[in-house]
């Protein structure tokens, strides 16, 4: 009787193990096929000239120089805007305003904002920055739109990191006669910096892949020059890839695959940095 029961349980245990294994393998397989397909399509197109050439209507001469430069400057301005506002908002919510209703309201809204589809941000950016503020489809309008998009990520990461700073450290600081600001700026934020950095990098890697909001605000698909200032028009790598995939010629699809490899590599590197930072920080903060 008991024996039979145990046998059944064991069988169930094994069955579950295989189902879980199957799911994992399936997910990895899909990812593997995807990567294989892209590599097979695009790897042969990846050479130095692909990085240094301007876009062109001849597929074999087209490169991603302007897309990379546009993406770089776009990320630079995005982070420049989103970082201080996001971190300070996170610090305010966690350290100063957790108990009033206004802060609670903001808190709920930020959680909601993180779930809003990115194309909605594009529409907001189009109306607010491109039209009302009269920026046109400039780098600045794009950066402001992306900044809005990634700010919730930075705020949430900052709050989580600050929450993880042990209460005993704050007490130590207050016990030394520190004011609230001194405690926050000298102990809490430095101790939380690892977590905040992780959030920043995740925010960047989210911004790297965004296409929809930029298309909505009118980022151009063909930009034969490198943006020189925040008022210039721009393109980015995801938009360039999107453009290439819509072309009927086979050669442009190869270009798109090569572009995807570059984009994947950038995202992969950013995520690796984020994980490394987080691990270092946990090691440092262990008590």
């Amino acid at each position: 009787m008991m024996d039979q029961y145990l046998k059944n349980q064991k069988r169930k245990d094994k069955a579950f193990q295989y189902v879980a294994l199957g799911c994992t393998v399936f997910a990895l397989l899909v990812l593997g096929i995807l990567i294989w397909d892209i590599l097979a399509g695009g790897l042969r197109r990846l050479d130095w000239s692909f990085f240094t050439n301007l876009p062109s209507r001849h597929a074999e001469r087209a490169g991603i120089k302007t897309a990379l430069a546009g993406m770089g400057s776009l990320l630079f301005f995005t982070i420049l805007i989103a970082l201080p506002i996001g971190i300070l908002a996170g610090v305010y919510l966690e350290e100063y305003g957790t108990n009033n209703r206004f802060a609670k309201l903001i808190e709920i809204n930020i959680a909601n904002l993180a779930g809003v589809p990115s194309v909605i941000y594009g529409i907001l950016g189009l109306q607010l920055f491109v039209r009302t503020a009269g920026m046109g489809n400039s780098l600045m309008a794009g950066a402001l739109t992306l900044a809005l998009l990634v700010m919730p990520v930075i705020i949430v990461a900052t709050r989580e990191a600050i929450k993880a700073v042990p209460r005993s450290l704050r007490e130590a600081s207050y016990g030394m006669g520190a004011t609230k600001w001194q405690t926050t700026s000298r102990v809490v934020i430095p101790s939380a910096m690892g977590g905040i950095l992780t959030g920043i990098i995740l925010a960047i890697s989210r911004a790297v892949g965004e296409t929809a909001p930029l298309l909505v605000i009118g980022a151009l698909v063909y930009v034969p020059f490198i943006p020189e200032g925040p008022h210039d028009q721009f393109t980015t790598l995801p938009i360039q890839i999107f453009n290439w995939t819509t072309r009927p010629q086979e050669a442009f699809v190869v270009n798109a695959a090569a572009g995807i490899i570059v984009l994947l590599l950038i995202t992969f590197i950013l995520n690796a940095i984020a994980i490394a930072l987080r691990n270092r920080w946990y090691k440092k903060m262990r008590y």
Partner: protein
Amino acid sequence: MYKLQAKNVNLFYGEKHALRNISIGIEPNSVTAFIGPSGCGKSTLLRCFNRMNDLIENTKIEGEFCLDDKNIYEDINVYALRKMVGMVFQKPNPFPKTIFENVAYGLKLGGLKDKRKLTDKVEESLKKAALWNEVDGMLNKSALALSGGQQQRLCIARALATEPTVLLMDEPASALDPISTAKIEDLIYELKKTITVVIVTHNMQQAARVSNKTAFFYLGELIEFDETNKLFTNPAEEKTQNYITGRFG
């Protein structure tokens, strides 16, 4: 004249009446031990003397606290108070910074920037806390690399750096091994030559070893306060007698 004084103090955490009409005077250059079962209010009273209870919400305090006959809630700025009345906590809580930065923290808060003065002060404080010999030459290492006992002495050095005249210690050795504990106790003995020490402890042998006077608290009341010798050998109150002999339920 008392160094520290509490007069008719009542303290409430929300509805809970945590301290009941407590009056106590602590003499300068002495060690006073607060003993009593958990939740008796001894830590709460200790934390009143440098206003750490201000940080806990819903705390209401009645009565008067004095440092050198000055009301600490009215006549002294709270940040200045905490520099004069240092605190050491139960769990060693060094900042995740270097040893040097930990000790220099209070000095830098006070605006001291001169590198030479900072270095001198840090060395002096570490010597006072009997840690200098163990950390000399590695001041730029992380404080978290030290052992628990060393970390606690580092916290004491950090508190001593601003030259407080009172040091409050909230069960400073309860998380430490016997050897580290002995070092802390030796240190307390040295410290009382220059400053006033108030220590909360669960360890009655420790209270008997290090203190001049001992206060016994029970359920928020100060039951007995007397010379340590007298309190442990010939207590006036039955409750004290029961507690120190371990008969307390």
